């Protein structure tokens, strides 16, 4: 038997007049990706390119694949994509490359490094480590246990954050890591897990919430239990809501990425690849820990809800 | 005969490729019991459904007291005083007998609670028990859903419902088919009483002795058309059977 896409291998005619870019984020309705989209759009405009964004409804490869293959028909010059699985998305993304479309990875990347021209991301595992250090600093030398709230088992980004956190928190002898709870990425479940954990582990001193929904749920759970501020809550990302929660004390710290820069760099690399400029294979962007104290200095990392 | 109370002219009704009614006509006057008879599948039930708003005929006209009416739903028919006992019993199997009797005509409580829509269940149960007594319906328990009742009990409830509410015409599609001897007599008595109250009664039955005993007139349907009409006393059992089977043709069947 042959291979799919073999026949339709519409020659890699990368037309220099083609100024169309496509951004395929990991999921729609997510401030992180909206901020990235803002960065992409601003930079593309500056460089004379147009961008269309097509996001899957859910952060998973079976929702993202049809978008990737659908985009093929539009023959954009380059695609900026956050692959939702480092293996499953290799097949569809290879089709893009085979069709002569330049592929740039933003936020996440494939195991197979032969497909993308460039990968721009912050390191999620690193983010988890940063969360652990931040939390440890917040609790000082108090003894107690900490909890991680994860989304859905198998989600690559949040799993990496948990992994980094777990490794790093082990370095603090006064802190016991009691493991992670999955929340189905649902704020209500997240709140429920927090109040239940408070009951079984009254010595809870910290929570690391690996994304927006888990963070919002955790803040609600702590509010219900009257433990806001007593249990240190470290969130991931810096959506406008999370930032205002940080300000009012619902969160004690946020681990922020720099989505706008990821987007901007993505466009730059795409343009370089299209115009024969020099392409950097891997770019790591900043990860910062934002607390109430340093939030004014770090405000450039705050995510946007619209451009 | 003066203007009939209810009259149907040349009703036609198709179900896909099946022609259930092929131009059937019919009339009933106030204070009259008319039996509608015919072979299985002759179209009797379809006819009744058209006359009670449960189905809409494809063509033909229906007149109430001489005025053409459009029965777009059973609600319209009921509001015109037309009640029906359907052959495929139109009861809610999960509700109890009293609830079924009062379905669509619930009694509400007095005062504010009633205005809020609260039902007077005790009163409905009491009155239902009375009505069932009148028809000789024997129930071991009033609290079981009607789906758990015996076939005859279920049928009695449906009959009771129609006679309680009718003000102009009652259609009864095989009301006695499942009834015991005693209950059947009671229902025939009730039919007579209803007739005497000036209401038109249309009875569908395959029981010829019953038809002959209770009807003022008999109309015969065959293959979706009226083929014969008889006055009470004028028809013998043989005539009726002959008309139903096609051996005897009275009306013009083109």
């Amino acid at each position: 038997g042959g291979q799919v896409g073999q026949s339709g291998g519409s020659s890699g005619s990368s037309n220099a007049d083609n100024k169309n870019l496509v951004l395929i984020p990991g999921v729609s309705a997510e401030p992180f990706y909206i901020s990235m989209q803002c960065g992409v759009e601003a930079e593309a405009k500056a460089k004379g390119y147009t961008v269309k964004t097509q996001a899957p409804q859910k952060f998973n490869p079976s929702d993202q694949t049809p978008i990737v293959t659908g985009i093929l028909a539009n023959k954009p010059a380059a695609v900026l994509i956050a692959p939702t699985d480092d293996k499953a998305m290799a097949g569809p993304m290879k089709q893009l490359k085979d069709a002569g479309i330049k592929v740039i990875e933003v936020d996440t990347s494939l195991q197979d490094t032969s497909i993308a021209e460039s990968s721009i991301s912050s390191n999620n595992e690193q983010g988890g480590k940063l969360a652990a250090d931040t939390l440890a600093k917040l609790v000082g030398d108090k003894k107690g246990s900490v909890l991680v709230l994860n989304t859905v088992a198998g989600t690559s980004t949040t799993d990496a954050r948990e992994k980094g956190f777990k490794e790093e928190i082990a370095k603090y002898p006064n802190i016991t890591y009691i493991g992670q709870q999955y929340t189905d990425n649902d704020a209500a479940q997240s709140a429920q897990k927090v109040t239940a954990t408070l009951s079984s582990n009254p010595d809870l001193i910290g929570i690391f919430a690996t994304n927006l929904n888990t963070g919002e749920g955790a803040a609600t759970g702590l509010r219900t239990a009257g433990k806001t501020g007593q249990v240190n809550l470290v969130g991931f990302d810096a959506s406008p809501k999370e930032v205002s929660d940080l300000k009012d004390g619902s969160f004690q710290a946020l681990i922020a990425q720099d989505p706008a820069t990821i987007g901007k760099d993505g466009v730059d690399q795409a343009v370089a690849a299209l115009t024969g400029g020099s392409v950097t294979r891997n770019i790591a962007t900043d990860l910062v820990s934002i607390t109430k104290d340093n939030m004014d200095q770090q405000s450039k990392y705050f995510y946007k809800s619209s451009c | 005969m003066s203007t009939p109370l209810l009259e149907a002219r040349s009703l036609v009704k198709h179900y896909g490729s099946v022609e259930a009614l092929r131009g059937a006509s019919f009339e009933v006057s106030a204070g009259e019991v008319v039996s509608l008879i015919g072979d299985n599948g002759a179209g009797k039930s379809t006819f009744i459904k058209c006359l009670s708003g449960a189905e809409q005929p494809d063509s033909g006209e229906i007149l109430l007291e001489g005025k053409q009416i459009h029965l777009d739903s059973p609600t319209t028919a009921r509001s015109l005083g037309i009640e029906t006992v359907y052959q495929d019993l139109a009861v809610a199997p999960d509700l109890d007998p009293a609830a079924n009797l009062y379905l669509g005509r619930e009694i509400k409580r007095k005062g504010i609670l009633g205005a809020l829509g609260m039902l007077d269940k005790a009163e409905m149960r009491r009155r239902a028990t009375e009505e069932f007594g009148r028809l000789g319906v024997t129930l071991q328990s009033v609290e079981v859903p009607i789906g758990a009742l015996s076939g005859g009990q279920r049928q009695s409830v449906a009959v009771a419902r129609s006679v309680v509410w009718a003000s102009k015409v009652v259609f009864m599609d095989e009301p006695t088919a499942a009834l015991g001897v005693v209950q059947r007599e009671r229902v025939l008595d009730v039919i007579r009483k209803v007739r005497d109250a000036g209401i038109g009664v249309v009875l569908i039955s395959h029981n010829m002795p019953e038809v002959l005993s209770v009807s003022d007139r008999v109309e015969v349907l065959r293959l979706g058309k009226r083929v014969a009409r008889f006055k009470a006393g004028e028809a013998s059992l043989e005539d009726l059977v002959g008309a139903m089977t096609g051996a005897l043709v009275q009306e013009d069947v083109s």
Partner: protein
Amino acid sequence: MTTVSESVAPLEKQSFGRRLAGANTLWIALVLLALVVVFGIIDPGGILNLTNLQYLLIETSVLLVLSVGMTFVIITSGIDLSVGSVLVFSGITSALAMNALSGGDSTDAGWGVIIVGGVVALVSGAAWGVLNGLLIARAKIPALIVTLGSFGAALGAGELLTGGSDVRTMPTALARSLGSGTLLGGIPTMVVFAAVVAAIGAWLLSTTRFGRYTYAIGSNEVAAQRTGIGVTRHLVLVYVLSGVLSGLAGFMSLAYFTTTTLTSHSTDNLNAIAGVVLGGTSLFGGVGSVIGTVIGVFIPAVLNKGFTIIGVNVFWQPIAVAIVLVAAVWFDQVRRRARNQR
């Protein structure tokens, strides 16, 4: 032809004890009780602890409000998959309205604005209900398709309104009163809301004409139609009820989470349906009760809470929940069957 009626068995009313034992909700209520007791024995400080019970009630109140509406829908033999998205949509319109009335930021808004926000939430929910109801009852499109459509569409519409990210400002007064406040000497306001909704729902379903028509339509829609019940109208009202309660749930959720939790409600529909069915309401319509639903909603809630408290392995949790759910219904069935035999 002789008439008889003396020997006719009397129309007996069942004794209270028998009615209780016969009540469809008794056995499943016992299951719930047993669960609480078992968790209480395993971890005495855990679930039986008053604070924990309070949390449990608060955390279940939004779902309960949705499930009350769902009970009516399912009794008509319909289904409403749109509840979670309508909840989100209503929360968004409500939050946006409150912000608009407060010049963009409603954080310090007063009660006038909050009340308008509540009304907007209810009206938004009702609007989706009307749409669902008309398509289902008038255009006769299967409820599953219609509400699966509005499940997607309501969320999409909400995201359109906000550009895909949560609305971040809402009145602090709302969060402090409805969201985390208490009433009547310590009962959380969320719980009071849910309890009132459940009580009114139970009353409406079991004692009023509206409730009776709901049962009748689910039991036999044709029969209901033929007895002159305005089936179309009633069905529309039932979906409107579900929509309004989703709107209320959206408002409660907004107060509770202090944000619109856009992407958190994709499984609310299945959770609500499961609660309703656990509580003894049949998916085929005609039977069911709000009390059953209340119990049915709390069983998985207690399980989830209990398993987290006693520290069951995360991957075992859904397995354990499944086992207990199935066992609970099975016990309920066996008991009911035994009762019917006797």
